[in-house]
């Protein structure tokens, strides 16, 4: 049965009427109109839909909208802007990371959560934090360079 939920996304409140079990991803993309989290698998296996909820990276494709209500949701669009970019966004541009780019929400949002907790991660810690995320174009080498570059900037 559809209910009303309040979603706090990138600092703005949104009222969404939805099935409580509906994944947050559909609310973000269709009800709120934020296209940046992508549908990659719907199974929490790839990361393309990653957002932060209360600072933690979560896969919005399997997070019920009811679980996200009244919590602080940040998407890639809320992480930084061209005027005030997050270091990872700057590093992604500097390193020219993406090819198709459909995976970037997963890598940047997961790495951003890592860097928030661990400002100078080792390569092993970076790989561990990013383990399981997918990139089909094979930009992994550049992704690692960008995360290391962002850590240097931060």
């Amino acid at each position, binding site marked *: 049965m559809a209910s009303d939920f309040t979603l706090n996304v990138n600092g703005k409140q949104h009222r969404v009427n*939805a*099935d409580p079990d*509906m*994944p947050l991803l*559909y609310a973000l*993309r*269709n009800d709120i109109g*934020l*296209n*940046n989290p*992508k*549908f*990659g*698998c*719907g*199974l929490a*296996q*790839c990361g*393309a839909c990653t957002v932060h909820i209360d600072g933690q990276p979560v896969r919005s494709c399997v997070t019920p909208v009811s679980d996200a209500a009244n919590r602080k949701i940040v*998407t*890639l*669009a809320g992480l*930084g*802007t*061209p005027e005030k*970019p997050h270091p990872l*966004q700057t590093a*992604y*541009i500097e390193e*020219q*990371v*993406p*090819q*198709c*780019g*459909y*995976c*970037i929400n997963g890598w*940047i949002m997961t790495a951003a959560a890592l860097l928030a907790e661990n400002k100078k991660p080792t390569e092993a810690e970076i*790989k*561990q934090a*990013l*383990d*399981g*995320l*997918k*990139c*089909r*174009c*094979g*930009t*992994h*080498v*550049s*992704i*690692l360079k960008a995360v290391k570059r962002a850590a240097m900037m931060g």
Partner: protein
Amino acid sequence: MTKMDKPSAFSRRALLKGAVVVSVGAPLALDTLLSMNAAQAQGSKPPLMPDQLSSYIAINADGTVSAFFGKMDMGHGLFVAIGQMVAEELDVPFKAVTVFMGDTATSVNQGGASGSTGIQLGGRQMRMAAAEARRVLVEMAAEKLNTPADQLIVVNGVVSAAFNRDKKTSYAELIGGRYFNVQLDWNKQWGNPLYAPGKAQPKPHTAHKIVGKPIKREDVAPKVFCQEDYCTDIKVPGMVHGRVIRPAVAGAVPVKVDEGSIKDIPGVKVVWEKDFLGLVAEHEWNAVKAAEKLKVEWSNAAPAFPETGGIYDHIRKAPVRKRSEEGKPAGNVDDAFRSAARIVEAEYEWPFQSHASMGPACALVEIKDGQATCWTGSQKSHFVRDGVAVMLGLPPDKVRAIWVPGPGAYGRNDAGDAAMDAAVLAKATGRPVRLQYMRDQGTGWDPKGPASIHRARAAIDAAGNVIGYDFLSKGFSRIDVLMNESKAADTLAGHLLGAKLTVNDGFGVPAEVYEFANKRVAWETIAPLLERASPLRSAHLRDPVGPQIHFASESFMDEVAHAVGADPVEFRLKHLKAPRDIAVIKAAAERAGWQTRTSPRRDQTGSKVSGRGIAYSQRNGTVCAVVAEVDIDRSTGKIWARKFTVAHDCGQIINPDGLAKCIEGNIVQGTSRTLWEETTFDKQAVTSVDWITYPILDISETPETIDCVLINRPEAAPTGAGEPSIRPVAAAIANAIFDATGVRIRRVPFSPDRVKQALS
């Protein structure tokens, strides 16, 4: 504005009417080509045909340049290279050029992204068109300035007299905002072979100032700041969300659909037409739920497949449908084998593989006023236009296909099928339909790279010389469905709606020039396991059949080198005479610090060992050699392809940074396909349907280093880079594993279980 502005910013109405038309000399000027609404009444544009200069190049009122490109970028920054080539020939700043890609309303069919021909063929045409535009502009300036054309120079779009720089005009003044009306010498070909030069010759490479420079992509910032739409993000008013329903048993078709089973889900409409079954809903989540819950009774379909492990026996035993010997046969191979002192032979196996694009494909189709528009991530939007026209029963000129970046594309993936399925749903419901597949449909039902076996034999004389070479591939055709979606028979929707199927046979042979006195390379194809709507139908997957053929042929070169006691680099060089082939092998070996010795190493003990391997191949004019340095844990079977050294010669390099990134993607994807990827199936269905069942390379397995030696040959025409360097990867890794362990692995993927078993 980015370099890659999408023409969807244009007024659709204006474009469909072909409205903006002002020929050279007409008095009215446009602000820019982007303000097409205002321009609608101002004359007539030459037809959007390959023989018109205006189909490729336009000078805007402000002097900026629009380049209309009938191919598109699949993530390698192709539009940057095209912008560089166009700016170079026109003598305008790079930043003055905007490349519009893959909109059928603004570009002619140059073949889409196809066969690594973006620069090789697409760029060649754009370069010729830009050179012709410059020639025409200089002639116009000559008349205006009353100065002979050969006494004019062009700097940043300003034409001036060489000896009196104050005597000048500009491209903007000469033609800004109006269209060229200049005929080109079109070869009457469409797609990749399209070529339409003008009278101008392009600049000599010695004059290049922009071509060859490492210019960055400007589409990265919009991507990381979420300012750019993917095809999954396009929405139009009145749009509904579509999903298709595929059977659990391949070949089964719906015989009974119980719409009552989804009556509690609001706003759903089921579309069941012949064997096609799908639905639309107002809200996407309702479409997803309804597609899951809809109760369908399927026909009893006979099990069509052997199980995964039985596929190679099936290929061995299956009747040959077509055989082809390609290349120049040399000598008498059979005689050579009869006289051989010994024969080395081996057989290699490569599985079906999936595109497994990052997201399942998506398309949006809107039908309105007897015309249709399709937003698609397919890398061949002009062919999508033709296919949608067939599905809708419209003439192609009533359909516009707009390419918008999709969730990855590496050939004929699921994007073409999504566009056709969306067209069927839009036609049936009368609503604009956005269709995105679910993950299992993307990985399970996309067209696959074909499974194959490869038999190689070498005849060796008493002195250890190779006197005969015989290489045969046998496998499923690489084109069960053709390389684009322009015909119903090549799409799932067409199969389900009863299109008459066609038989298409194609494979390939090793692309190398080893000079063995007696040499034969051939292929044989077999019939598909299931003819209609098969999840194992084969089609082009990045470097179609290249990885499998060269896994076999270049692994075998090492096996022969081993048999005759030669170093693998030395052995290759001994049998090559082509200078560019020799150069890449030497360059890769030298950069990698290759020590001349035979394989395997004999100096390692313990469970962790490492090795090095080389492989090389050509691809349509490009030559590439790869040295892989690999670590193996014998106790787990786990392989880490730690370092790659790649020497790459694709003629003239347009943008070295773009090229290096392109190679990086090839190497990593090639490593993934070698170590992990295999489409699995049981007798009834494909069982690799997500990232657990179809694993790809993980970040923890990323190579530490990909070191590229980019050999620039500015005097040579540029050739492709999108695929050549994925070709030798599997063999380079296999050869490194042999070097480390003395064990030859002849079946891909080299998953830990398989490696461990091979090593035990």
